[in-house]
């Protein structure tokens, strides 16, 4: 039997922890730094590529993802040297997907050609909103016009481009969003990520929300309406959801992210990066220090070997498999599920949810239905808790 990860592939996630400013909604591991010694960071990334390559030698790399923070603040030469080192340590699939997350300002657009020649073939751009008032409320440094200009540059430079929008914003009605999404679909190439605004603890929005200073957010019913409208409009435009918040023309799905959702293996490189690596048939979770300085120091001291590498217990492998896998429109393969030996209780819970119409089985797969997807957290609790 193939190992769990093999059907999904092997990807490398590289985390760049810096941004020009911290957005008030964002709980990513991102920091504003006065000065960044790009070459010092490059050396540390290379050392980590070497270390991880020694853990899982002989793999074929299907995808690389530069995520952040704002990786479009990286010097193109740093991106180039990382990709070179990856190619030196592993074999890289011919059609490998190499994505870089970019913020849509003019400064960054200037570097796009450089990333393309370094080997990046896909960008994912954080446009977030198409009107300036909302961009300002979201604490973004760019205007809508600037974002669209950067997007044009990206389209010229890369084979594949996607952009992100955040919706269910303060005071955003259904009609507002439908109009905005309509424009987005006109602009979109073949991929879109559409996230409902999540109020995260430990962010400026989280704090304001708790103190009642973030009015106008949608209640559950409006959020559900916004979500349903999003599903309909994107499907009608030929970019249906292939995951809870991700939409693509068939064939244009982000393969790197599918590795996460389909329980593939991924190496996590950089501060606070998580990985899943199958070592000697055992699924392991890897983690690195979150604080950029602490990570850099540790790597420079040669202490990368002491970063945590822990077994994911069998039950947790199953939990993650369903938790991540049911986010995908096509769900999980029943034979892979059977390989993880779910107990009677879980199987009967699944049956009940099939009965109630929240899950369905077809073509050897188990998937959440249109009814189940908007309440997936409850579905997962009903299966696993």
């Amino acid at each position, binding site marked *: 039997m193939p190992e769990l990860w093999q059907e999904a592939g092997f990807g490398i996630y590289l985390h760049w922890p810096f941004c020009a400013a911290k957005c008030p909604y964002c709980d990513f591991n991102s920091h504003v730094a006065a000065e960044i010694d790009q070459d010092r960071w490059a050396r540390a990334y290379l050392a980590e590529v070497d270390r991880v390559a020694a853990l899982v030698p002989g793999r074929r790399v299907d995808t690389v993802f530069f995520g952040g923070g704002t990786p479009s603040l990286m010097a193109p030469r740093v991106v180039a040297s990382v990709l070179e080192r990856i190619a030196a340590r592993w074999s890289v699939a011919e059609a490998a997907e190499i994505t870089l997350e970019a913020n849509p300002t003019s400064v960054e657009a200037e570097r796009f050609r450089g990333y393309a020649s370094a080997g990046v073939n896909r960008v994912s751009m954080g446009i977030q909103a198409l009107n300036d008032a909302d961009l300002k409320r979201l604490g973004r440094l760019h205007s809508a016009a600037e974002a669209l200009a950067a997007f044009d540059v990206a389209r010229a430079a890369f084979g594949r481009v996607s952009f992100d929008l955040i919706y269910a914003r303060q005071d955003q009605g259904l009609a507002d969003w439908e109009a905005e999404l309509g424009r987005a679909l006109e602009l979109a190439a073949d991929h879109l990520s559409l996230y409902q605004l999540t109020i995260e603890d430990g962010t400026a929005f989280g704090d304001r929300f708790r103190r009642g200073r973030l009015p106008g957010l949608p209640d559950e019913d409006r*959020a559900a309406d916004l979500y349903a409208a999003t599903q309909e409009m994107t499907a009608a435009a030929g970019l249906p959801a292939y995951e809870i918040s991700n939409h693509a023309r068939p064939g244009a799905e982000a393969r790197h992210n599918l590795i996460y959702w389909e329980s593939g293996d991924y190496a996590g490189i950089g501060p606070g990066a998580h990985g*899943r690596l199958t070592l000697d048939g055992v699924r392991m979770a890897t983690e690195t220090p979150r604080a950029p300085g602490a990570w850099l120091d540790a790597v420079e001291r040669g202490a990368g070997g002491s970063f945590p590498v822990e077994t994911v217990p069998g039950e947790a492998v199953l939990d993650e498999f369903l938790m991540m896998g049911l986010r995908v429109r096509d769900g999980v393969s029943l034979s892979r599920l059977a390989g993880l030996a779910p107990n009677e209780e879980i199987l009967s819970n699944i049956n009940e949810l099939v009965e109630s119409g929240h899950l369905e089985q077809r073509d050897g797969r188990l998937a959440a239905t249109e009814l189940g997807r908007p309440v997936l957290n409850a579905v*997962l*609790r009903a299966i696993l808790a």
Partner: protein
Amino acid sequence: MTDLAHIRNFSIVAHIDHGKSTLADRLIQLTGTVAERDMKEQMLDSMDIERERGITIKANTVRIEYPAKDGQTYVLNLIDTPGHVDFAYEVSRSMRAVEGSLLVVDASQGVEAQTLANVYQAIDADHDIVPVLNKIDLPAAEPARVKEQIEDVIGIEAHDAIEISAKTGLGIPDVLEAIVTRLPAPKGDRNAPLKAMLVDSWYDPYLGVVVMIRVIDGVIRKGDQVKMMQTGARYGIDRLAVLRPAMTDIAELGPGEIGVLTASIKQVRDTRVGDTITHERKPCETPLPGFKPSIPVVFCGLFPADANDFEDLRDAIEKLALNDASFTYEMETSAALGFGFRCGFLGLLHLEVIRDRIEREYDIDLITTAPSVVYKIHMKDGETRELHNPADMPDLTYVDHIEEPRIKATILVPDDYLGDVLKLCQDRRGIQLDLTYAGSRAMVVYDLPLNEVVFDFYDRLKSVTKGYASFDYQMAGYREDKLVKMQILVNDEPVDALSMMVHRDRAEMRGRAMCEKLKDLIPRHMFKIPIQAAIGGKVIARETLSALRKDVTAKCYGGDATRKRKLLDKQKAGKKKMRQFGKVEIPQEAFISALKMDS
């Protein structure tokens, strides 16, 4: 050992929030009992719940030493008491251990219902009373008017009431002098056989059972062999101490003194408040009369959310009952909830406090069933049954009639709000007994059914009078009425823990209110849930809780897998503890909140 002439024992009593605990702070502070740096506001309110709610729940005793103007130093034992009506038993019990009371009255609010109730108790306990007007620092304070009121409404001498501000410290030296000069010294015979009153007891995780005593006659020393006259339990005294307020060891306690002892007491049940402690060898002849038992008026079931916690719950309840003689319990079993206890309380706040203490101090998650009062069911065969739990309501064909408990409520309210109060009482099936005026305030006395009062009357009263009314009540016997059992069905399954007795004429209204409340209290599930109220199979009210429409994580990538899985693990642990009613999870607070009405 202090001679009787140099001891004064007193309780501080008042309506809720009139400043008893703050006055206690000042007395402790001015006598240097506690170092300045260790002082904090209402320092005797040491329980978390007391600090959070800003009220006193347990009476607290402190021994302070006061060098009086006559050049002599006096030992003063003060007992700070709670003001809320639910803890009145705490007050009456405390009063039995002392000879006098400081009656604190907020000079900006004047005499309130518990002021009256406390005075009657103090008189009943033969106390000398020193009236103290507090909060005279407030611009709204009207000491002259309040003195008049005390004389008119209460009928005690008030021209020499002491005017103080417990907040600023103004007048506190006068209070100390008055304690010595105006309150009596205790009486007692040092040479008589030991006779001590068991005033209070509590469980301390380090010391075990701690017993507070007031010595009447004789002397008690460390190492003595004593027995409790009621329970017959015998123990050797391990430790003798006084509370300053920290426990400070002392060699002996003589007549008039108040202190605590520990005695490796294993059986929590051996210590009963009101019991008499005497020497095993040379016992006293007659025990003290003991305390009047308190009568619980609200009952509810307490069940561990996790059935495995039952033994821990038993232990917790026994220990809490030790500290609270007004709380009663007996084992109960329920089809849906398994093993638990049916517990009796003096009111809803009392219930909430006990529930919170069990959850926090003993870390047990509880399911609390809908509270109920005690009904008398008269069966056709002549038998009379007490119904503590609506779930036990016998088949109606065998029931002749049902009686419900009534109370006599005394409400003091400014004229402007009288109309609202009368309407509230009328709505709650009240019968007016009396209406008198004292200045611009009215005193209304109503006969009300307890079950209309116990859950939320006090909150409603406060809200319709913007906090200006005060309320006190006494039990006033039973009366027959048209009472029926109302069942609540959630997702078509009856939930026993939510059934309640209601008056037939009010059933529809209550049923509708319950269903609406539950609709807000029960979180949405993946399916829609009908919530119905029914009487004997006939649905009288119905609401539908619509299905959950949106609950999904927007972003979930590689870095989120671990975090999201841990969240799921937590939910798994939570759900193991959560009891299901059919397929529905009903949150614990729903059982009490559902009974509170908005009108």
